[in-house]
């Protein structure tokens, strides 16, 4: 008997050691539950962060755009008639009013880590007989690459865009039969055109983006799209992508400009992610509940089996609180021990998964991060579940009438 160990701990561990097989089985049950929770949580979080990362590769978390143009009925006076139907206005490419000032303001908003001006509009890429509709994006490379990971996605050539350079996607390069160093012509609906040299080819892993997007210098784009001195949008990177909507609202309130977060513009995607998270939570809840019921049932049986001993302990002067703690300790220990074994099992499952889930080229299907905090949360959660599961049997043991317990 360790001199430092309190009475309740000594008794609790002896009780568990006496019913060793029962104790080990329930620890194993809890361990399997924790392993499933750890594995599923890591997998889902890896999957979701992978989707988010891929999406934010080619999309800024927040984009400031000029407000939509709306048709306003002109009324001469109160008595004037208003048409039942007002024809909506077509949206023209316009610049954000005083965009430099807006940019400075946005840079000071907490959570914003990079801001870049962009001129974006429709055009055509022509090379020989080939003609493809594209989205022209005029960028300021230094700031743009801090918002969008374009430089990392270059598969051929380089990313430093000059006044006569263009970066195109891998699909467009295939469609136009263009390679690094080739020239192609970019035209817009207004008739302006420029001949540019392909200096880089990118691959975002998204066919639509690879086929449609072309990147040129900001000033070239301003001239091509007839927006000299202006920008059609300001793209913003934030430190916490899931806080984008809140930050967008702050920006909108501070600048008076329309700020759209990627959460708002990808509502369906987020609904799907929320559904996935919810289903994972439901599964985790039921796995946790099963483990809790396992612990509770073992302790209920233990209280019944040991009712005479509990009665004697009470007769000898053991308080109700000591009896209560004796069973809470058992529940907490079973939860903790189960979570330690379960965390190791879950870690093992994740390592096996990492080894198996690979693309044909040998790269990981998606990166599953093994977060140490996940194990800490699993251990704390399982211990808490163990203690909570022990509350009912522990209270029952503490409330045992010694006379009834001894008489059996």
């Amino acid at each position, binding site marked *: *008997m*360790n*001199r*430092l*160990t*309190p*009475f309740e701990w*000594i*008794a609790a561990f*002896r*009780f568990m*050691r*006496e019913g060793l097989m029962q104790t080990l089985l329930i620890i194993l049950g809890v361990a399997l539950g924790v392993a499933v929770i750890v594995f599923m949580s890591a997998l889902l979080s890896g999957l979701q962060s992978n989707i988010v990362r891929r999406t934010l590769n080619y999309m800024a978390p927040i984009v400031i755009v000029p407000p939509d143009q709306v048709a306003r009925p002109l009324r001469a006076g109160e008595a004037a008639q208003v048409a039942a139907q007002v024809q909506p206005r077509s949206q023209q490419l316009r610049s954000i009013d005083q965009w430099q000032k807006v940019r400075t303001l946005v840079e000071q908003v907490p959570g914003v880590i990079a801001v870049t001006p962009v001129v974006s509009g429709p055009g055509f890429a022509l090379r020989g007989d080939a003609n493809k509709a594209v989205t022209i994006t005029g960028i300021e490379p230094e700031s743009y690459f801090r918002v969008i990971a374009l430089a990392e996605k270059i598969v051929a050539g380089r990313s430093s865009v000059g006044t006569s350079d263009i970066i195109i996607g891998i699909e467009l390069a295939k469609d136009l039969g263009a390679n690094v160093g080739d020239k192609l012509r970019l035209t817009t609906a207004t008739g302006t055109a420029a001949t540019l040299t392909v200096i880089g080819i990118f691959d975002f892993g998204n066919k639509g983006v690879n086929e449609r997007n072309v990147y040129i210098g900001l000033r070239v784009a301003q001239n091509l799209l007839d927006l000299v001195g202006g920008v059609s949008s300001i793209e913003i990177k934030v430190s916490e992508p899931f806080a984008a909507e809140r930050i967008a609202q702050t920006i909108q309130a501070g600048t008076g400009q329309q700020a759209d977060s990627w959460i708002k513009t990808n509502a369906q995607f987020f609904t799907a992610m929320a559904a996935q998270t919810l289903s994972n939570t439901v599964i985790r809840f039921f796995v946790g509940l099963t483990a809790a019921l396992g612990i509770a049932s073992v302790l209920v049986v233990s209280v019944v089996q040991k009712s*005479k*001993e509990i*009665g*004697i*302990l*009470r*007769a*000898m*002067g*053991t*308080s*109700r609180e*000591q009896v209560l703690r004796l069973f809470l300790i058992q529940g907490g220990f079973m939860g903790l021990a189960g979570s330690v074994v379960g965390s190791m099992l879950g870690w093992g499952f994740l390592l096996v998964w990492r080894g198996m889930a690979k693309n044909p080229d040998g790269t990981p299907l998606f990166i599953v991060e093994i977060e140490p905090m996940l194990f800490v949360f699993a251990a704390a959660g399982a211990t808490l579940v163990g203690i909570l599961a022990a509350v009912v049997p522990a209270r029952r043991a503490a409330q045992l009438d*010694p*006379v009834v317990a*001894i008489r059996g």
Partner: protein
Amino acid sequence: MAETNSAETLRLEGVCKSYGVGTPVEMEVLHGIDLVLQRGEFAALIGPSGSGKSTLLNLIGLLDQPSAGRIFIEARETSRLTDADLTRLRGRSIGFVFQYHYLLPEFTALENVMMPILAARGRPDDEMFRTAAALLDRVDLTPWRDHRATDISGGQQQRVAIARALAMNPVLVLADEPSGNLDTKSADSVFDVMRNVNETSGTTFLIVTHDPRLAQRCDRIIELVDGRIISDKPNVNVLRRG
């Protein structure tokens, strides 16, 4: 009200116990029990089955509350004590020996004897080990001190239970048919141990027994029939012999 004095270990005044109070089947099983045990007495409580002996013992042991009347342990009135106070008083002043030993199978003989002290003090210390070892020595079980409670004979288990009852050096030991499950030889041995403790330490014993042979070895015999003490007298045989 009778006055209590410091020589009294136990005083019962008009103690009644009813079950099913307030229901049509209310039944009084103890009727106005008055009883005093002086320090160092070695008394037997006898009576037929169902006479209320165990109920009386539970009330004296503060395991149950009387429906009426008062119980004093060492002149301390117990009816107004809280559950926690009763538990403390019970742990400190009263030792129990039951028909079955109810030792904790998870612990050794020595640890079982230590258990009441451990529960009271919270953590093990050298002194409680020494106390438990001395008590086991007193019941001639030193060679068995490190054996698990399940690995010793019935008579030895009951002697460990006696040592456990004495661990907190109680003023009163209540024994409910302590030799009921034992053969004659073991029963005598257990009885001798209790008698020896009584004589050497002055601990008061109240022993419920069905065995007239053992009752005749006590100083005082109290007879309970239908919830009433019908006879309470010194055992002349023992007194004469003493």
